[in-house]
């Protein structure tokens, strides 16, 4: 179950309500469908936040199984490592031409207290995710966060969205992806978003520094099994923000750092920080063409590479923040906008949920 494809081309779109208003999935489907020609039918997917409010304290594992044996092995494994509160098939609509889906099942899980003697809950869960992906043949964790989920597969994104009946879900953040891979793995796990815990990444581009980003992450115990660069992005955010506790605006300065010529002109306090970030986190710099939308439980971040080799447009309307590869994909769902702009190279657009939103 390996993906050797390099994602390229591609369309991305994301939207969030800062006030935490829940929006149904048909909106994001319309947005990504508008960029149909940026995909080639070999992958589409969505991440949605706020979809399981009644189970928001449980880890929602969206699983893909190649066969029933993989499902049984995984379920045996879950019994050892989690308390399984509920499991059920992920609802799908089978009549729209999506071919050969794997077994799609979701589990609502709690970490038993006795497992947390030496690890935090999130480190523990991350370890389990890595273990399933690398050790259980035919099983893949599509998403593993709380109150969120990834819905992805092989097909055009609008077809994948209908397949998963996304119009029946309501979320305060939606991100989406249409894929144009340069070769044809045709593997469901290889579609975007890539996730780890509640991080999700949709990505247009290629990380040319993949080799060193991967080796750096491996030093911190990450297992990069998928051999795709998008996985690297999710893990880099996890390392810098969750484990090293860098503020988000500094983490993006490591991942798409300012040029030295600009750092040298900063005022001393800023310069010291920017210099230290590049000195210490040089191996996390994501180099090469990319535009990404990162989702997490408290917000959504858009980021371009440091010379903006891939497109990204952002817009606001009231409490709504939109980001997409093309302006048309935003206008399709929000024709009347307060502001619309092209984020500068290497400058993150950071959307944060209002503090009172649960």
């Amino acid at each position: 179950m390996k993906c050797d494809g390099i994602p390229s081309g591609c369309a991305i779109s994301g939207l969030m309500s800062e006030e935490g208003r829940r929006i149904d999935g048909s909106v994001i489907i319309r947005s990504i469908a508008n960029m149909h020609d940026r995909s080639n039918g070999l992958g589409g997917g969505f991440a949605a936040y706020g979809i399981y409010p009644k189970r928001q304290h449980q880890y929602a594992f969206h699983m893909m199984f190649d066969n029933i044996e993989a499902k049984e092995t995984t379920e045996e494994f879950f019994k050892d490592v989690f308390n399984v509160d509920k499991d059920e098939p992920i609802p799908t609509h089978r009549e729209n031409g999506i071919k050969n889906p794997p077994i799609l099942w979701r589990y609502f899980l709690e970490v038993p207290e006795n497992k947390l003697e030496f690890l935090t809950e999130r480190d523990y869960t991350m370890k389990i995710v890595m273990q399933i992906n690398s050790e259980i043949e035919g099983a893949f964790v599509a998403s593993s966060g709380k109150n969120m989920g990834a819905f992805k597969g092989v097909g055009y994104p609008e077809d994948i969205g209908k397949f998963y009946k996304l119009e029946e879900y309501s979320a305060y953040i939606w991100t989406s992806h249409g894929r144009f891979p340069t070769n044809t793995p045709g593997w469901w796990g290889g579609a975007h978003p890539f996730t780890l815990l509640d991080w999700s990444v949709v990505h247009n581009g290629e990380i040319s520094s993949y080799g060193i980003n991967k080796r750096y992450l491996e030093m911190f115990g990450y297992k990069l099994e998928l051999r795709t660069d998008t996985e690297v992005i999710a893990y880099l955010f996890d390392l810098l923000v969750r484990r090293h506790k860098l503020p988000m605006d500094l983490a993006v300065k490591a991942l798409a750092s300012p040029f030295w010529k600009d750092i040298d002109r900063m005022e001393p306090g800023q310069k010291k920080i920017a210099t230290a970030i590049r000195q210490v986190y040089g191996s996390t710099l994501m180099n090469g063409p990319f535009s990404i939308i990162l989702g997490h439980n408290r917000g959504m971040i858009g980021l371009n590479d440091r010379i903006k080799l891939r497109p990204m447009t952002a817009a606001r309307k009231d409490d709504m923040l939109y980001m997409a590869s093309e302006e048309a994909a935003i206008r399709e769902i929000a024709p009347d906008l307060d502001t619309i702009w092209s984020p500068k190279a290497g400058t993150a657009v950071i959307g944060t949920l209002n503090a009172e939103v649960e």
Partner: protein
Amino acid sequence: MESQLPAEFIVNVDHEKCRKCKRCVINCSFSAIEFKDKVTPNNRQCVACHRCATFCPENAITITKNQLDYKDGYNWTPEIRKNILKQAESGGIILTAMGNPKPYPIYWDHMLIDACQVTNPSIDPLREPMELRTYLGAKPDCLEFDSDVSLKTELAPQVKIDIPVVFAAMSYGAISLNAHKALAMAATRMGTLMNTGEGGLHEDIAQYSDRIIVQVASGRFGVTSKYLNSSALVEIKIGQGAKPGIGGHLPGEKVGEDISKTRMIPVGTDALSPAPHHDIYSIEDLSQLIYAIKEATDYKKPISVKIAAVHNVAAIASGIVRAGADIVMIDGFRGGTGAAPMIIRDHVGIPIELALAAVDERLRQEGIRNRASILVGGSIRQSADVVKAIALGADACVIGTASLIAMGCRVCQKCYTGNCAWGIATQKPELVRRLNPEVGADRLCNLLTAWGHEIQEVLGSLGINAIESLRGSRERLRGVGLNQETLDILGIKHAGIGQ
């Protein structure tokens, strides 16, 4: 004993062109040309340093190999036979200089670099920033910030270099003061570093001290508190690629007034560097010396430890990092020397490509790669070697022989004789004078400028615009004609394998 050894080279003089200006006679520092009514070569003395041919105004001189054929013998090569003759005549160790010339595999030449096509755009270095800046020194595992987003973590001292190529350790004694001046000036102009080697810091180059690595070697020549503090960083020399496990010996006749002062030894005495440091017999002793120097420099200078690439280099390097070194400098078995026994130079140590790959991987496995920078040398010949070394995991490369060639060296391997006709590896005032430090510095700057542009071209073709995105990115290298075990050690795939 009358020598039976044949001449190695023949000096051919075109007497029709020769105007008998005797410039060649004056220029030859090996007594290989005399004037007896006409220019008369003494072929046995010729070392092929090209000084006469370069300076002949009529281009009347050529130098050829002495094509004296030997009875064929794959096993008993002419060189082996000549070495036996030499030793039968002298009873001594055969001395030589510069790097190992033997045809061992050169792994640099079996690695190829990736480039962008279609799916990711290459970048034009003439139009976009292309960053080579590198910081040498220990990095923490992570940065911590106070709640007001000010930096809480105190970083260990970092030395900035504008190009990831620094000049190798070559002592004043092994090379001339003018060569040292040229290296120091070029390092300053190019924002990189030169290295005093173990011969102390001459007062004439002290003005460049913030671009100078000062070395503490087993002889401790010229080491004072002032010396340690007049530096960008301090290097403890444990070993040298050309002669791992061997000390050094600067003969007394080279120790004149100036060298005597710089090394702090009496005029005319031999300067002996013992094989080991007599206060380092184990890793904990090295740690003591590292911290003694850190104390002496108030923790303001990174401390480098230089070792030769030997079989167990990965474990040794790991120990050095854990002992507190901020930089590990690894010198491969092809590294140069001013003088070494041929048996050591040609048969001891391992290639830098394999040593580097093993060290970088080991430090990563142990989670301590960030705790030290890795410098590598030992025959970095061209910018392509630099690119490949950085992709394997080096922070920067060290060039000795290449910098000498830039200043005029013809790699005749006679450094140990002190007769260098180019004014580089000599202390004879009339020869030293031949190297103009300003001109030498210009040539060194030109070399580094050219390499810098070439490295930028490669980065651009790789679609990356900062050197740190190449560092350790072995995914961008492929092997050609290497067996699986070598590929595994280098951590690269064979050409033809995709992602």
